[in-house]
């Protein structure tokens, strides 16, 4: 799909003049009022802002869950802003991983089966799938918890399973939407350590939405949103 020589020279993600308007006419609400954003391979970006600032909308567009109303979104140099639903699904399947605030694990489904789920959609054969999922679970520190269902795991452990599920396919970008929002501070720090380590050791690009400065502090770069625009975008001086 994308030549490797190109990939090195162009940014992984490039938003240019992206707007998003919900509704039409009088009820129209502008969530994004023109965003320009470049994210390079290997970056760890924290998106911050108050609720209604457009940060979640931006993440949804970055995660190809939603299409921009106007503007350009180039993913590895390929314009993806006007893709169809199924094309976006394929893009998510092969290049993106998601971590949500509420973990979003399948109930009554063991940890390893949850982690295998993206591999099923990628048509990975069962044996291989099992092996990869097991390794990935171990890499997030959940060796021995493979057969436990989500309701038998703590919040922190559930989020680890969710992270394992997001990275099991070796995605280009990990999209994390308030990954520590449901966790106490000790667990939150553990999760952030894990994300930070994945970014550092495996080179996974991470885009994380958060409203907690302590969590954003783990990122290499912090982008502040306000009223649908980028208010500030600067490297994180005190990155861990």
């Amino acid at each position, binding site marked *: 799909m994308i030549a490797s020589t190109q990939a090195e020279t162009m940014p992984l993600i490039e938003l240019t003049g992206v707007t998003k308007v919900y509704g039409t006419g009088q009820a129209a609400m502008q969530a994004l009022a023109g965003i320009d954003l470049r994210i390079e391979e290997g970056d760890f970006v924290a998106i911050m802002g108050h609720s209604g600032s457009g940060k979640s909308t931006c993440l*949804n567009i970055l*995660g190809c*869950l*939603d299409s921009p109303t106007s503007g350009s979104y180039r993913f590895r140099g390929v314009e993806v802003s006007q893709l169809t*639903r*199924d094309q976006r*699904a*394929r*893009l*998510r*399947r*092969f290049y*993106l991983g*998601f971590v*949500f605030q*509420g973990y*979003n*694990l*399948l*109930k*009554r489904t063991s940890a390893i089966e949850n982690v295998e*789920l*993206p591999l*099923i*959609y*990628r*048509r990975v054969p069962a044996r291989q799938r099992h092996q990869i999922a097991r390794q990935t679970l171990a890499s997030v520190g959940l060796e021995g918890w493979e057969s436990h269902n989500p309701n038998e795991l703590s919040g922190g452990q559930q989020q680890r399973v969710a992270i394992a*599920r997001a990275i099991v396919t070796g995605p280009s970008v990990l999209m994390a939407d308030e990954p520590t929002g449901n966790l106490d501070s000790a667990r939150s720090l553990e999760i952030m350590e894990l994300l930070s380590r994945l970014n550092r050791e495996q080179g996974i690009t991470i885009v994380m939405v958060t409203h907690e400065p302590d969590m954003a502090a783990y990122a290499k770069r912090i982008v502040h949103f306000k009223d649908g625009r980028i208010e500030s975008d600067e490297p994180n001086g005190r990155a861990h």
Partner: protein
Amino acid sequence: MVWNTLLLALREIRRNVMRSFLTVLGIVIGVASVITMVTLGKGATQQVTTSIASMGSNLLMLSPGKRMGPGSAGFAPAFKIEDGEAIAREIGGIAMVVPVASRSTSAIYGHENWSTSVTGTTSTFLSLRNMRLGSGRSFSDSEARAGAAVCVIGQTVREKLFGGQDPLNNRIRLGALSFQVIGLLESKGQNSMGMDQDDIVLLPLRTFQRRISGNQDVSLIQVSVQDGVSTEKVQRDIRLLMRNCRRLAVGEDDNFNVMDTKEISKMLTGTTMMLTGLLGAVAAVSLLVGGIGIMNIMLVSVTERTQEVGTRLAIGALEREVLLQFLVEAVVLSSAGGMFGILLGLGASFALKNALMVPFVLDPKIVIIAFLFSAAVGVVFGYFPALKAARLDPIEALRHE
């Protein structure tokens, strides 16, 4: 992928065994009733047609009563031996006249006891029914006239009473009296409706009337027409003769029936088939209701699993993969219900065959149709809920609690 989808569907169903079972109960009942109705109906129809076909096409049957079949009402005098003799004497073109009277009685030999069907008739009964003697002989004319205490027995009766012994010239007891066994029929086995044709004891008609039934009645007269003679003409002649014999006034309805095999067959199967069709239609409606039940529960399931669908979509599931997932689940549910219903229906027909005295006729065609139909119910009624799931907005679905 299909295999994974199937496994996933099975797991979803297992997760909610009770609900899944209640969901498909409508299908189970619907399919079971259709199968039972059709199987019993087929059995009844086959019973009638084979028993009539076995009589031959040039056969007429006289029975007392205003009309034959279900709902025959009103008193009608039985036939007598003389009626049969009159037909044989007065009407041309007739090959055989066989009066028949029968009753169920227990036959006893030594310590052995067997309940069988005892039939009083003439020796022409054997050629009319295509039965052959294995050993011994049939009744002589003098025995028939005199009402001698002799009998011809079928293979089943021999086996039950005599075991390996030769029954000829032994005496068996029927009711209070003993009869000498003079003949043994060749085995005919079961007929196609599962009735044992060898479970029979034949007596001369007069003997039967005097010693078993105690009256002069003949329940049935069978007449076979010579080849090349018009059955319709003979039928007409017999009817006129019988009206005479029974002294029916002009304008008075017949109090007997003369039917040829086609009429008998048509009348009996017609009723059975109409009833089968009607009950089958009612059962089919319950299948429809069962389908609506599946749709209802699938809709509930989609709503319950909205977040799961959102997660799957976010991970990269295509619309059609989500559609397939829910559709397969509905089809697995409904066809499992169908399979259960088929087993239940066949079991019920099998259990009812004795109570209703209808043979069990397994029709693979109807089993296959019922299965495919139940699967189709799953497709039709599962499609809308599945489409609803597939069309969910992933962002909304992810937020759904």
